[in-house]
Each structure stands twice: as structure tokens, then as C-alpha cells.
């Protein structure tokens, strides 16, 4: 029997409504007890002194690109899950835009096999359409039987409205959420950033917010037609927020996620960087992402939606790329941000700026995503996103006050593509425990 006791932390467990100083006792990889002074009674335990720190359930990411199979020069399941652990994530949902894409039972199973030795839990997402080609449905039933927890053609939208309608209808037999990357391909063709004054300054064609909003509106209508569960991936615009808000008010089964970068950064990041003046232009491919970073008014709407629960999950859209994919001309550079290791620090911006309190932020990183996809109904995932006794002991230990500087060269992810390099963030993940095992720990964290 192995026992680990975390002492004297502020335990924030929004799923169970707990917020207070307590000890957490882990026995054989599962939560045993949480409560004041519980740890002192345990003998023969490994101990972590978490005085002054915050202990929460491990974060759950509904949107992670692990790149394996097919793009292992960008990331592997091993490096991606190590990066997840460094970011406080103990569950990541792996997007299927791999090569081959995860559109078959065998492909899902091979990812799960590889993930058996990974640092944190990997839940695969299957494709909506065969080969992500947008022409025929992928075998949803097979994919679910193999272990897929949702379906998505992320990276691309399912453009054909009729096919999307049928994908939604068909999914209702399995209760699988359909996570849609909402950007109408004809409206974003040849576009490389948000359409607006920055794109005009840079001479780049834009991807208008309406490209996202028209598809959000269309898919909500289709979801209401079929009663299916539509999940809007990486919401980026104020207009989309309004559509989702109205749909949810009508009772449609629509859930949504937002990324840390869309919650903090704007299209100005692409051209000017943080706090820079307007005379020094640059073409920062590390800020190139789809959907693109938008305007301050969008950021404000996204924060409000996250606060009031219209958006219930923060998801990273961790999209690692190799240098050769990014250090090239802007219009041919790959889109995406390596986000797992900066997610908590970046999201803490919302707490320091007063948009969210810390418990609500933790909610949106833990039980929020779990409930959005009802992941805790999966066999073996009971209690996921909480510190409930009996649940697998997935834990993040946080220091919300410490300031640190983002150094992409020190990422565990192979993807160093972040616009945050050199930026100081407040709030750091100091240790991560997955299934009772310490999988990440800063040197500064003392053992008792």
C-alpha cells in the first residue's frame, strides 16, 4: 500500500463545492480522504507540504493536439502528455487530425495503446468524417466502442450542411458530443489572421468573425433539429457568444470551450506584440492560430461568457509545431499555439484583472469540461474532475501568486510556438499528481 499526504493546502474542488484549508490523503492512486488534519493521522506516507499553495483536481483539456501518429516531428504522445503534466493537466482529449486520422477502431486503439505509458490520461477523439475529408461519415459506433469520447474534424470544419446534419443526428444514438471547428472555409479562404485593421496594416487577407458566427448559427440550428449534442470548439468572437447564449437559453444541447489565448490576446499580438508601439511591425507566426486572435471586444465577451457559464470549459487547443513550420513566410506558416504549459498562468490574467475568481477559474479547468462532455459517466472515470473519495487521484498543486517568465526553450512540449516567450505570467503549476504519482514537480516544492 502506498500513501501520499498533501498537507495544509487551500483545497479548491468546485465539483464538490469545497474551498478551504485541508489535507489530501491518497492511497494506492486514489483519493482516500480530504479534510483538515487528515494527513497528520496517516503514518508511513510520503508527504508534500503545500502550505501557502492551492490544491485542485487535475485539469481536464477537451482539445489537445498530440500529433501522433504521423507528425511526431511536432509532438508525440509522450512529450505532449509530459507538457500536459507540467501545465497541471491530468486528462487530455486528443484531437484526431493525425496521419492517419483517427477515423477507425484500429487508429483509436493504437493511440490508447501508446498512451498506456504516457504521463497523463489520454482520451481520444474520433473523426466526424472518414479521413477528415468532409464527404462521408466516419463509423461513430466503432470509434466509441474503441474508446473515443467525442467526434471532431478539428483543424477543418465539416463544411457541408447536409453532412453535418446527418453527423449530428447519427451521434444521438451514441451520446457522443460533436466538437465542431466553426469557420466557413469559403469565408476564410486565403485568410491568415483576424479580418480587421491589423490585417489591413499587414497586407494580409483576413478571416472574418462572421466566418465563425455563420457556422455557429448553422450548426446550432442543425443541433436543435436533431436534438444532438453540439460542442463549439475554441469560441473566438462576441457574435458566437451571443448565438450560444441564446441557444442555451432555448434549451439546446450546446456546449462550448474557449482557449486561454483567445481569453487574453488580440490580433494586435500578430503585428505588434505586447505593449509595443505601432511603428514597429512584425509578422509573428507564433501568434498565427485558427480561429484567429480577435479584438478587445471579443476578449471581453469571451470572459463574460466564461464567467456566467455560457462557456463552461477552458480548453487549450494545444497545437505544437516544429520550427520549420513556423519560421517561414506568414501565409504559409502553420497555425497554432503550443499552449499546455502556459494555460494556467495565462488564465490567471483573468483573476488578476478581476474577471473571474480563482475557484471559478478552477471550475472551468476541471469539473466544467467534465460536465460539458459528461466524461465522468465513462467507465473508470467516476469522480473525474473532483477530489471525491474513491476517484483516481489526479491533482494539480498551484501557486497562484508566483511570477515567472515563459521560456519556450524549456518547454517539455516539442512545440515552442508561443507568442508568450519572455512574458511574465502570474500563477504557476508547482506539482502535478496523476493516478497518485507525482508526474511534475518544480524544484522549489519541499517534501516534508
Amino acid at each position, binding site marked *: 500500500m502506498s500513501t501520499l499526504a498533501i498537507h495544509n493546502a487551500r483545497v479548491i474542488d468546485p465539483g464538490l463545492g469545497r474551498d478551504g484549508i485541508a489535507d489530501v490523503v491518497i492511497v494506492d492512486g486514489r483519493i482516500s480522504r480530504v479534510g483538515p488534519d487528515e494527513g497528520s493521522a496517516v503514518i508511513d506516507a510520503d508527504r508534500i507540504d503545500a502550505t501557502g499553495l492551492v490544491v485542485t483536481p487535475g485539469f481536464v483539456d477537451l482539445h489537445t493536439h498530440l500529433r501522433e501518429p504521423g507528425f511526431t516531428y511536432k509532438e508525440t504522445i509522450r512529450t505532449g502528455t509530459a507538457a500536459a503534466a507540467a501545465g497541471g493537466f491530468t486528462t487530455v482529449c486528443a484531437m484526431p487530425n493525425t496521419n492517419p486520422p483517427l477515423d477507425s477502431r484500429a487508429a483509436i486503439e493504437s493511440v490508447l495503446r501508446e498512451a498506456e505509458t504516457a504521463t497523463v490520461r489520454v482520451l481520444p477523439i474520433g473523426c466526424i468524417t472518414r479521413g477528415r475529408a468532409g464527404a462521408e461519415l466516419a463509423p461513430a459506433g466503432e470509434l466509441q466502442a474503441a474508446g473515443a469520447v467525442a467526434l471532431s474534424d478539428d483543424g477543418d470544419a465539416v463544411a457541408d450542411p447536409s453532412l453535418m446534419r446527418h453527423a449530428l443526428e447519427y451521434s444521438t444514438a451514441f451520446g457522443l458530443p460533436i466538437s465542431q471547428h466553426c469557420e466557413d472555409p469559403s469565408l476564410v479562404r486565403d485568410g491568415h489572421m483576424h479580418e480587421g*485593421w*491589423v490585417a*489591413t*496594416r499587414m*497586407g494580409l487577407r483576413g478571416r472574418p468573425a462572421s466566418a465563425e458566427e455563420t457556422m455557429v448559427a448553422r450548426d446550432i440550428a442543425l443541433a436543435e433539429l436533431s436534438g444532438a449534442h453540439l460542442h463549439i470548439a475554441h469560441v473566438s468572437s462576441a457574435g458566437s457568444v451571443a448565438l450560444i447564449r441564446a441557444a442555451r437559453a432555448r434549451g439546446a444541447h450546446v456546449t462550448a470551450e474557449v482557449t486561454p489565448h483567445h481569453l487574453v490576446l488580440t490580433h494586435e499580438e500578430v503585428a505588434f506584440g505586447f505593449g509595443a508601439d*505601432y*511603428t514597429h511591425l512584425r509578422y509573428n507566426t507564433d501568434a498565427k492560430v485558427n480561429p484567429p486572435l480577435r479584438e*478587445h471586444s471579443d476578449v471581453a465577451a469571451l470572459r463574460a461568457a466564461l464567467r456566467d457559464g455560457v462557456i463552461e470549459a477552458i480548453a487549450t487547443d494545444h497545437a505544437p509545431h516544429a520550427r520549420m513550420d513556423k519560421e517561414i*513566410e506568414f501565409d504559409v506558416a502553420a497555425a497554432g499555439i503550443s499552449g499546455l504549459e502556459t494555460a494556467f498562468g495565462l488564465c490567471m490574467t483573468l483573476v488578476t484583472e478581476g474577471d473571474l475568481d480563482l475557484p471559478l477559474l478552477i471550475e472551468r479547468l476541471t469539473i466544467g469540461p467534465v460536465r460539458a462532455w459528461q466524461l465522468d459517466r465513462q467507465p473508470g472515470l467516476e469522480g473525474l474532475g473532483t477530489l471525491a473519495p474513491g476517484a483516481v487521484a489526479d491533482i494539480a498543486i498551484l501557486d497562484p501568486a508566483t511570477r515567472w517568465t515563459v521560456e519556450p526553450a524549456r518547454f517539455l512540449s516539442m512545440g515552442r510556438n508561443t507568442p508568450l516567450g519572455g512574458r511574465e505570467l502570474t500563477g504557476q503549476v508547482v506539482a502535478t499528481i496523476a493516478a497518485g504519482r507525482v508526474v511534475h514537480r518544480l524544484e522549489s516544492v519541499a517534501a516534508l
Partner: protein
Amino acid sequence: MTTETMPSAGAPTSSRPAPAWRHQHILDLDNFGRDEIEAVLDTADSMREILDRRIARVPALRGRTVVNLFYEPSTRTRASFELAGKALGADVISLTAAMSSVQKGESLIDTVRTLRAMRADVIVMRHSSAGAAYLAAEHTDASIINAGDGAHAHPTQALLDLYTMRQHFGDLAGKRVVMVGDISHSRVARSDMWGLTALGARVVVCGPPTLLPRGLRASERPAHAESALPPVTVETDIERAIEGAHIVMALRLQSERQQGGLLPSVGEYARRYQVTAQRLARAHPDHILMHPGPKNEGVEIAADVATGDRSIIEEQVTNGVAVRMALLYLLAGYAPGDVDGGSR
């Protein structure tokens, strides 16, 4: 073995011609102040004198290497840089990359570094991707001159436009300059806007709404970003735009705009937006007519006015060589090492 390298009028007399010159690269005019633009135009005046000599050649840049790296076809800009470099005694080579760097398998950064390793001092670059010159500039200590990057910028064209306008009007402050056409896809218009507004001209851009980029109107930008784009007036009615204009510039219309669904037809465009004698009647009596070329007569500009007495399109071309000589000369004054063939 001459020590006389530069003419005297308005010309710097040492090898460090412009004490205030602070540019290693010419990427766009968005970071050029009025003084700096005027320094270039004054230097170009001296270069015009050299060009008008019987043997238009001085050894100011002897021993320096200028590489024209063109990823897009170009006749006039490339020829103009070749002549400019040769007139100053530089070694000039021109490379045409028919394919993009990606298709070729060698990255832009590798290409630029390779050229620098061969001791290229100045790399003149044209590329279909906006920002390509910026990428190059980040990865080399050679001087990069942007000879056109996608729809973003074409600063040397803008400077020759400014030079030509100044020849006609002297001070451009308060002059009304109208650019008509495909503003969205025009790197010339973007660079001209910066240069013209820096010199105090009143700039009007005019075109159909589908060819006007978003954000140009100050009302389409947040207050904090007011200075992020030049202050211009946006107009969709050509008659109103041309009213009282001192300078009218027609921009090339690509026929692809029709296939792209941006225009019903080239014919309708011509009817609504062609610069014609009738429309120019609304301009200022002393107006001049410009075009960055190559022009489609009968589309964006009527044939009779293109070759008429108000047209200074050919002057633009001659001035292009002088302005590019000025830039090569000024950049040599910046670069580490020194300009060889100066007043030594």
C-alpha cells in the same frame, strides 16, 4: 581612380551622407519620418544629376554586392534596381526564383543566409507573401530592401511616387492625392499612404466596397489604434473622390477580381471607376496623373489620359532609378564596414 563620387547639389560630401540615417533595411515607409523621406528625395535629386550625365556612373558602391532576389516576376522594378546598382558601381546579380521557397525546398531564411555568406551587402527582395522581407531582415545582417511583399508594401515605388510628385508640386503639404482602384490588394497604395501622410498630403482612397480593406476608416479602429494606420479618407464614389485633386493615381485592376466574386465584371468596373478625361475635369486645374504600372488602358485608366499631357507615368519610371540609387547609397552609409569608393 577618381575621388569625385557625388555631385555637390544637395549631396552629402562624405561617405556617411545622412548623419540621421538610422535604417538598416527599407521594409516600408511606416517607420519613416518626414525628415527621413526628404533625405531620400534630396539624395535622389543628386542621383538624377548623375543619371543625366553622358556616362552615368560613379564608383560610390564599388566593391559592394547587391542581389536582386525576385520570387515574383517583375520587369521595371528589377531592371530599375539593376541599373541603380550598376550606376553606383556595385556588383549586381539578379536571381529569379520561379517557385516559392516552399516548393523549392529551401527556406527563405536559408536563401538569404546563403546570399549573405557570399558577401551580399544588400538584398532586394520581391515576394508574393506579405512580410517576407521582414522575415529575411530578422535573419541576416545584410540590408534588405523590400521590392514588394504580397499586398503589404512597396516602399521604393512609394518613394519614387513621392519624388515625382515633389518635382511637380514642391511641398506636398495640403495637396489632395486620390488613389483609385483595388486598394485591398495594392502594396503600392499601402506604402504611398504612409509616405504621403508623413509629408502632410491629404489622401483619399477610392474603389468599390469589395476592394477596400476593413479598418482604413478611423471609425473602424479602436481609439488607441488611431495612429496604427495612416489618416486617409475612404470614398466609394469616384466623382466625389476626384473633386479638387492635385494628384490622381490609378491602380492596376487584376482580372482575377472578377473570378474571385469581388466584381461583377471588368466592364462594370471600367464604367464606374475608370479614370477618364471627363472625371478628371473635376480635379484641380494643375492636376497630374500617375500609375504605378503595368497599366491596363481601357480598364482602370482611359487610353487618352494615360498618354495625355497630364500623365507623368514615364517620369515615374526614370525617377525610379534615381530613388533606388539614393536608397542603395544611404544604406551603404548605415552598414557596418564602410562604403567603399566614398571620399577616400
